[in-house]
């Protein structure tokens, strides 16, 4: 168990700079998730920590030791790849034993460690099989087993669930959480799936275009996104983003929307607001005219336990409302929404959140 420290880490591919400069401290025993859209640099960052990618500038330390020039195999890391990357010509046992064998571990010791890992992952009956005789979920377990056997200081996961089907993904996610709890190891986990990030992480690092947008616990990111990017990325349903014009009426800030709707802001900082962000679950549906935003229903998506109501506001903006159960709403019906107090977000012209008492930490 070790901490990982990135300071001023930067990566160029030829003349192209893909990661400008990243500072991040991952505490020992923590499970940190790097999340972001494709091409945001999350995998590159992980591969630099792994030692599979050269660090152009800056330093990476694992457990207090600078590892920039240390070979991947000597960094005390283990990596689980998206494609599992099992050796196809070796049995499951040989796959898991390979690293130990190369390190000239005594046979009895290898046997013990492989069996232990296989027991944890419930793959003991598969030890004599080759990867092609395994299902996707079993292969992923073997890949994780291979990582456990190395007894690493830091586990690195590169989108490990992307190749699994939905139900298996949920199941394996829970198992990784269990594993983190029982091993207590430091884990860095890369994904583009915000659900995985929310459910697994102690802390989430949101990356965009090679920069860290925000670092925080899942609930911090959900409750207090620092900008529109994080607000749009973290959550099952993206946040509704409405263009507004702020007006100071005798000390009260009023946000005006296209179509004439007005919402009174809760913070004086909203004077600089250009965008109003409201999560679909942070509003309630009311009779037409009883709330500040009014529009007509365009689509109702029933998900069983809840439903998504897509509506077009009087000003023409699209707006999504999430309601419990199965509402009985006809398409074209006119409804209004009321805001849950304290749950709206306001952002300035640059997309930065305006929040009282907030110093913007990235």
């Amino acid at each position: 168990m070790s901490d990982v420290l990135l300071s001023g880490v930067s990566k160029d591919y030829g003349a192209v700079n893909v990661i400008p400069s990243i500072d991040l401290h991952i505490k020992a025993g923590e499970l940190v998730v790097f999340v972001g859209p494709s091409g945001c640099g999350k995998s590159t960052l992980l591969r630099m920590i792994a030692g599979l990618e050269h660090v152009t500038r800056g330093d990476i330390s694992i457990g207090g030791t600078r590892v920039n020039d240390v070979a991947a195999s000597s960094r005390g890391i283990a990596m689980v790849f998206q494609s599992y990357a099992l050796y196809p010509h070796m049995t499951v046992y040989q796959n898991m034993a390979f690293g130990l064998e190369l390190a000239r571990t005594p046979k009895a010791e290898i046997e013990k460690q492989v069996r232990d890992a296989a027991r944890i992952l419930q793959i003991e009956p598969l030890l004599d099989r080759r990867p092609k005789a395994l299902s996707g979920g079993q292969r992923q377990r073997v890949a994780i087993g291979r990582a456990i056997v190395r007894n690493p200081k830091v586990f690195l996961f590169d989108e490990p669930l992307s190749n699994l089907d939905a139900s298996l993904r949920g199941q394996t996610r829970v198992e990784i959480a269990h594993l983190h709890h029982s091993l207590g190891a430091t884990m860095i986990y890369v994904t583009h799936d915000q659900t995985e990030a929310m459910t697994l992480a102690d802390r989430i690092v949101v990356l965009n275009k090679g920069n860290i947008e925000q670092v925080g616990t899942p609930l911090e990111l959900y409750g207090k996104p620092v900008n529109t990017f994080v607000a749009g990325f973290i959550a099952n349903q993206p946040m509704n983003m409405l263009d507004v014009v702020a007006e100071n009426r005798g000390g009260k800030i009023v946000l005006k929307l296209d179509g004439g709707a007005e919402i009174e802001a809760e913070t004086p900082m909203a004077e600089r607001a250009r965008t109003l962000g409201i999560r679909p679950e942070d509003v309630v549906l009311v009779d037409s005219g009883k709330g500040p935003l009014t529009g007509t229903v365009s689509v109702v998506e029933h998900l069983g336990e809840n439903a998504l109501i897509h509506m077009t506001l009087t000003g023409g903006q699209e707006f999504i409302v999430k309601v419990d159960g199965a509402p009985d709403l006809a398409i074209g019906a006119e409804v209004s929404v009321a805001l849950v107090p304290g749950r709206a977000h306001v952002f300035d012209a640059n997309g930065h959140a305006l929040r009282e008492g907030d110093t913007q930490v990235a």
Partner: protein
Amino acid sequence: MSLRNDTKPWLSGGFGLVILASIPAVLFVGALIFFTVWVVTFSFTDLSLVGAKSVNWSWIGFDNYERLFTRRGFMESLWVTVSFTFFSAIVGQSLLGFLLASVMRALRGPLRGFIEVAIMLGWLLPDIVAAFLWSATTAENGLINSVVLGPLGFDSVNFLNEFAFPVVVVANVWKGTAWSYLLFSAALDSVPRDVIEAAQVDGATWWQRTRRVTLPMIKSHIGTNTLFITIWTFTYFPLVYAMTGGGPGRQTKVLSIFMYEQSFKIGKLGYGSAISVAMLLVVGLLAVFYVRLLKEPE
């Protein structure tokens, strides 16, 4: 059945049509079989190219085959051919092709293009032209003597005379490596980068990654390559014949040259046929051996 398509393929029109359509295939396969049967048949005769026995040949049973072992020539040439195949193809072309393919993967840009073109050139040049180039390079007044050995103060060496076998082997490596290079390049592309990186994380050195991960993963490609180049090299004729004519002595007299001489210079077509059949058997056995080797263990 209702699933049947309304527009029938024309081939299903009738039995006569099927027979008509299969004529080219039958002719082709027939020609292949005809020549083999011809060679096998006449290997049991004393047919000659010229003279009385070119018309009035007679059956002589296994005499020609007996001669393969009792008379001087065949066994010596078999040994030359096996060595030639082993050193120039299995070791030379395969190994060099694989090494080049692995090294060139890391290389990008114009240097890679240059080297690839250079490798291809040998392959693309006609055998006779290549033979002439190699003769000119290694002759007593050739390139190596006049540019390298001469200026260094050494006496000139007639390489083709003194080191005929090694020179022919090197020439064939130069000529044929492109095939192995291409095949191994494709094979290495089929090895996922992740797997190699996993081995890297597991602590495998370059050599360990190659021996324990890459090579086992491209085993079938290695087998295919070895099969092809063995067959080609075992029956290879023009380059060697144009460079040395099989000499000096019997040093480079591979079986194809020996067969050619017996059949068309001496004129013993029957004996030549027996040599051909023997070559067919040897190559066939090697092919079976490789195919067995290729089979995945269950």
